[in-house]
């Protein structure tokens, strides 16, 4: 019975909006979504649209020539530097991603299967280093890998090397190491969640049916934790490809990535439309690599199942 039919005169009849909301579940959903949707529209869609529009403009002295042109994209395709930087970024962040997932998997596995009390405390302890700022972690690695850093002075005092290793800092290797550490929390958490969810009785069944620990891991644990691996890979690969701070601080001349190139377009080079075009290209490539990766994991999953 709706309130409108109530025969006590003072009771106010519900307004038009309330009636509509009451009837339509879709409308209720939209109203609930609207604050987030608004933030998304203002904070993400509009800037992306501006970026897209700007990428078809061109630079004219200090201002923009707003006649639409694909010249920026043509330039990105024809000049080797852009392709090379993109490839280098994918290479560095791909290596960092693989390294991170490989290093974090055992940690997540240990907490999920071998810790029975105070699991939350363990998770908090593992993520503790990530409570400091990203920038501080990068600087910490500068101290560790530096010419007079922890690694070099350690090796020197043990007599293993006679001169400090110069390649540790200002190199692609330094960027990979730093990224692998700086993003570890983003791998541990999804991996832990997917491992934690695995039904232990499946593992018992596998053991009962004669699988050794290795076969059991490969046939049960690994396939069932695949969603966590996929999530971790995406969470690390996407942001690190465009990373700018790490290569800027410890990459040196040969460790610069596409994010640094984009920053330069908006800074010293002062060619915003080119920077916008490069950002769009980067987004499209990351999307393409992501889709390809998803398809591969689908196939692998189908094989394993």
């Amino acid at each position, binding site marked *: 019975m709706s309130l409108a039919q109530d025969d006590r005169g003072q009771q106010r009849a519900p307004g038009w909006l309330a009636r509509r909301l009451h009837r339509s579940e879709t409308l209720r959903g939209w109203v609930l979504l609207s604050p987030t949707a608004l933030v998304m529209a203002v904070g993400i869609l509009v800037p992306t649209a501006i970026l897209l529009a700007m990428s078809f403009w061109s*630079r004219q*002295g*200090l201002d923009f020539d707003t006649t639409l042109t694909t010249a920026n994209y043509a330039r990105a395709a024809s000049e*080797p*530097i852009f392709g*090379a*930087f993109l490839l280098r970024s994918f290479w560095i962040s791909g290596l960092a991603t693989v390294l991170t997932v490989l290093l974090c998997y055992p940690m997540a596995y240990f907490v999920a299967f071998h810790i029975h009390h105070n699991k939350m405390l363990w998770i908090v302890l593992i993520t503790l280093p990530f409570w400091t700022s990203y920038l501080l972690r990068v600087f910490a690695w500068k101290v560790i890998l*530096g*010419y*007079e850093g922890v690694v070099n002075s350690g090796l020197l005092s043990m007599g293993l090397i006679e001169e*400090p290793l*110069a390649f540790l800092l*200002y190199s692609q290797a330094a960027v990979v190491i730093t990224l692998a550490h700086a993003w570890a929390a983003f791998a541990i958490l999804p991996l832990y969640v997917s491992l934690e969810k695995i039904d232990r009785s499946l593992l018992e069944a596998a053991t009962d049916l004669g699988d050794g620990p290795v076969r059991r891991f490969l046939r049960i644990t690994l396939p069932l934790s695949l969603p966590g691996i996929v999530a971790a890979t995406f969470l690390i690969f996407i942001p690190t490809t465009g990373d700018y701070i790490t290569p800027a601080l410890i990459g*040196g*001349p*040969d460790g*610069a990535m596409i994010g640094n*190139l984009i920053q*330069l377009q*908006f*800074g*010293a*080079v*002062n*060619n915003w439309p080119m920077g916008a075009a490069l950002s769009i290209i980067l987004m499209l490539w990351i999307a393409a690599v992501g889709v390809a990766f998803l398809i591969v994991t689908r196939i692998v999953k189908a094989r394993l199942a």
Partner: protein
Amino acid sequence: MDVIDHLAAVKIGKLSRRAFNRSLLAAGVGVLSTPFMPRRALAQGAQGTFFTWGGYDIPELFVDYQTKHGALPNFAIFGGTEEGLTKMRGGYVVDVAHPCNAGLVRWIDSGLFQPIDTSRLSNWPDVLPELIDIQGNLGEGGRPWLAPFDWGQTSITYRTDIFELEGEESWNMLWDARYGGRLGSLASGGDAWWCGAIKAGVDFKDIATDEAFDKIAAVMREQRPLIRVYTDDTSSLEQALSSGELAAAMTWNSSATLLKSQGVPVEFAKPKEGALTWVCGVMIHKDAPNLDKAYDIIDSLLSVSAGEFMIRDYGYGHSNRKSFEAFDEPTLAALGLSKNPADILGAGHFQIPQTQEWESRMNEVFELIKAGY
């Protein structure tokens, strides 16, 4: 309606509900209306903002300002003047910014600045006139756009115990393949490109020609594989020089002075081809939100106490004539300075203001070279 009375009343349980509600209402109205209060009221407590390089954000330069306002100005840091200008073009508003002579004309043309009313600066009469009279500085009515503050050189700081000098000091030191991987450079084209021009033998008058671009680009490409790090962070270069990671690096006066004061065996080269010389100063943003404090920032920078610090601790020249009185000629000569800045500025290569097109093109080419192309 006294707060303490209220609290006491609550303690002894005598506060009526009505009185309590009234205080709640007052607090609510206060909180709600704060954002609508005139902005000026808020800005009064704010300090002026100084947009500059790292290293100028220190109390020693703002003794007068601090005495007057009880706090330091706010600082915003850029890596190079071009980066700073781009940020301000994008809408970033500061009170005072810190460009150099090479960018002066472009900074004025950007329309983001206002000429300086020198009558509001108590230290202005002592400013060296040859520094005020740089190309393009005097606007209508003889008002300058830029109040000169510091001047100095870009040259090579090298470790005397590591770098074996072959003959005279020269720009070739930063192209010396024996020290490949142990050389450093400033990342900003505003320094490096001009030094490249000196090395390539390009006259600064011809620096905008295509031929000059090709020549300078060629020497920068030749240098790139030898460079361990390009950075605008001078303390990175100083640390690397002090640890021996770098044997030589392109720096300003201050790096050499700082390292020497710490006992590191370094020398600030006087290259036979001549060093790069520059004058930097401060400009006021046209929409400066704290105009009075902007003048106080400038006056503080021009003061003798700031000048003596600049000369003694950083080894830079200062624009106040009186700052030099505390130093004798040999001390100044050892720092590569003189009481007569014309001697130093004339002996080196003085940057010539360029167009925006040139600046963008130079940065684009130089960034490509640094990236390996």
